[in-house]
Structures are given as structure tokens and as C-alpha cells.
């Protein structure tokens, strides 16, 4: 069968578009539940990362926890207010690679933090009972609420 060059080109573009569209819709829905997030910590929530103030400093020299603001959408275990401030340990690292001897068991499948994303998080509170590093809290003047410690952070796709 003879196919003209123009027709072949059109077919290729069509197939490429299909592939791109399939890729865009590739993130399967997930509620973020796994054995870790549903068992670690004393509190478990699904929450929206409202915003990130400033840029995360490099952590090649200093370990730190950076406080992020979340709006709680659902509480699975324990109790949590509508707005929580959560310290993420060395947030430039994917959660699966963030744990070290100092942090204790932390993790999850979030690879980077972006405002607007929804996370399922296992938490402890107050952060001082679980974390002995510098805590960078840009919300310090907005709230005196206790800071939560993120133990396990998974991505939720709705």
C-alpha cells in the first residue's frame, strides 16, 4: 500500500499527540495510603500544601527542617486542626532519601514539594520531641501553634 509522505507525517503527528495525551493523564488516582503512612506517627491526615514561603536552603552542609503550611482535608487518625504547620526534614531531598541517623524513620513517595499538591502525611507533635536540627519557620509571626513533624509523606492524586 502506498502512503504519501504528507499522510505519513500526519499519522506520526497524530500518534505523537495520542502518546502525549496519554502521558498527561498518566498519574493514576491514589489516596496515598500504604502500610507506612497508615501506621507510623500518632496522627494521619490528608492535607493540601497551601504554600511554601521562600526557597529551601541547600542542605549539603546543614541539615534542617522547613515548616510548610497545610490545610487538612481529612483526618484519618488522631486529631488535627484545620490548618497545620509541618516541619519537613531536608525538603530538597525526595522523601524516600531523606532519612538519616538523626531523623529517625521518615520517608514517603513525594519527590519534591510544590504548593497546591495534596499529601497523605503521618505526623507527630510537637516537633521538638522528634527533631534536633535547626527549624526554619517563616510562619513564626503568624502563629504560635505547635509545629508538627512529618514522619511519612505520600502524594495524593485526586
Amino acid at each position: 500500500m502506498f502512503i504519501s509522505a504528507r499522510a505519513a507525517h500526519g499519522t506520526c503527528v497524530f500518534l505523537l499527540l495520542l502518546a502525549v495525551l496519554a502521558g498527561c493523564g498518566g498519574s493514576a488516582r491514589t489516596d496515598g495510603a500504604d502500610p507506612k503512612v497508615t501506621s507510623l506517627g500518632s496522627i494521619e491526615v490528608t492535607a493540601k500544601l497551601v504554600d511554601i514561603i521562600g526557597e529551601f536552603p541547600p542542605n549539603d552542609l546543614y541539615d534542617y527542617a522547613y515548616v510548610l503550611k497545610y490545610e487538612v482535608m481529612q483526618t484519618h487518625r488522631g486529631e488535627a486542626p484545620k490548618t497545620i504547620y509541618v516541619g519537613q526534614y531536608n525538603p530538597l531531598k525526595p522523601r524516600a532519601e531523606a532519612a538519616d541517623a538523626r531523623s529517625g524513620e521518615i520517608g514517603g513517595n513525594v519527590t519534591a514539594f510544590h504548593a497546591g499538591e495534596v499529601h497523605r502525611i503521618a505526623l507527630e507533635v510537637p516537633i521538638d520531641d522528634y527533631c534536633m536540627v535547626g527549624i526554619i519557620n517563616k510562619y513564626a509571626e503568624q502563629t504560635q501553634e505547635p509545629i508538627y513533624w512529618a514522619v511519612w509523606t505520600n502524594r495524593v492524586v485526586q
Partner: protein
Amino acid sequence: MFRFVVAVCFLGIAAVVHAAEAPANEAVAALAQEIAGKGWIVYSARSDNGTWDLFLSRPDGSSVRNITNTPDYEEAAARFAPNSTRILYRRLAKGTQINHDQWGFQGELVISKPDGSTAVVVGGEGEFPWASWSEDGKQLVCLEKKGIKIVDLGTKQVVKELPRQGIYQQLFCSPDGKWFCGTANYQNAAWTVVRVSREDGALNVVHVFQNCTPDWCPDSEHIIYSSRPGDQKSNNGYGWTQLWMSNGDGSDAQLIYGEEGFHIYGGQLSPDSQYAMFTKCPNDGGGAESKGALMCVMRMADAPSIGGESPELRSKHANTKNGPVLELTFGWEPHWTYENVGATE
């Protein structure tokens, strides 16, 4: 003819430079001679076997000797007991990188005589974190997630606990036993040097923002620490860490030494408060992860002093004295005693 003129000019300039350096070198030599007999320092450094060992030397850098010499371990962070009859330090497995920020959590606590003999391992890996001496050397002051713990050295029992109030590293007891100092998150400001009353736990801020490695001055009233002021433009806006000192209540903060191109850490005073010892490192962190940094000594009578050209620093501190600074060898976290602990029998 032109070459001759250039050569004469060059020689002239060289002579002027040499003439300017000579008095400076003489001043440094005089400082070295002045402190040579003033006790001993203990410090960590890379040894010929490639690992970190502990060394004793005179404060001018002479009479150096390796007092651990253990190719199978890394030893670091030695401190003399208040009466200088013992030292404590941390011993890490060979190849473990000393973390400048976490060393108090690393390895085993070891106590020995100041010459390194009769070393006794106290506790297991990571136990007695950030252990330092109490004022009488009979107790250890430790910093854990759950709080400040004072441990009787004889029984290893906790005799007192206090909330740590955000302190997360470098906890030290004042020579009079009344206070602690440390690096803390306080009122949500990280890297804040604080002072805590041992009696009632009352806390006050000493210096806020980008400070660490606090240590007590012998008078128990002043605290010396490293600080990287946030208003610096040099080093691409990152700035350089400087040596500062404040009253324990946070008042009268003053620069002791700074030098653009170097981060100043490990500051402490001699037992008579006449001299300051510190390390200077081109990379932030003090060099614990590599080979340490140049250990230095200056007179406190020359404080504040600024090294090098340091144009930005000099513009902010016009009253500097440019005193001599004696550079020793590469090391980390030196500690100074006036007791004659290095005497050989």
C-alpha cells in the same frame, strides 16, 4: 635601560613589601614566644595513618605529639576536664566522616588521661550525646531529644533533667556550674545561641540568627561563639562566619575576629582569658569533613581584629586593631589548659 628601570622598581617594591611584613612577622613571633609556655592544647587532626587522632601541643604549636594514634578509629572533639586530669572525646569507627553539625551524636564517648592513656569507653554508639563536663568534672551534661540530662559519672545515673527548650547542639556547662549555653531554635528562630539557668531552667537569648559553636569564657559571664551576620554582600551574599562574644544575658555583643575568605569556628579563650583560639577555614563548616582548618591564636587585647583585606568587614568595624594572629597547624575543635598535662616523665 628600560629593563634596568623596571628591575629597580621591582626591587624597590619588593623591599617595601618585605619591610612591611617584617614587623608583622616579628609581632607574630613575639606572640608565639609569649604563649609557648602557657600550658597545652588538645585538638583533633588527621594523622599519618589517615584517620583523625588527638594531639597535644604547646599553644604555639610546638612539642606536638599524637596521644591516640589509632589507625582503626577516628577520634575528635576532646575537652579537658575542669581540673585537667582527664579528657573526654568521641571515638568513631574508622572511615566515619565527622559531621561538623552532628558530631555530638556520633560515635562512643571516651574518657582518658590527658596524655591519651587509660582510655575508657563510656557507653555505646551514640550514647551520652553531646556529653561535656560539669563544673567539677564529676558529672556529664548531655543533650537528648527529651531534654538536658545531667549524669553522674560514677554511677551513670541521671541525677537531673531539664527541658532542652529547643537547644539542639553544642551544650556546655559554665565553669561555675550555674549555666548552660547551646545552639537552639528559640521562638522559631533557628541557630540562636541561648543561655539556660541550671537551677530553674530559665532561658535567655544571647544572639539570634546564624550563630553556633558557643562556649563559655572562664569568667562564666561571657559566651564566645561563631556568627554569620545576614547583612553581608561578600561571598555572593552568603557572607563569612566571624568570632563574636557577648555577655551571658546577650548584651554587649562584640566582634572578636573576622576575615573575609574564611569562616571562623571553634572559638574559645585561654584559661586566663588573655588569648582567643579559633580555626579559620575557607569552606563553611570548619573542615570537620575534610582535614580541619588552620588553628589560630590572638591576644584578646587586640580584639576586635580583622585579617586580610576584608573590605566589607572593615567598613563595618572601623575600630579594629589588626593584632598579630599566630597560625598553628590544621586541626579541629582545640581546647586549652594551663596545667602541665603534656610534661613527659
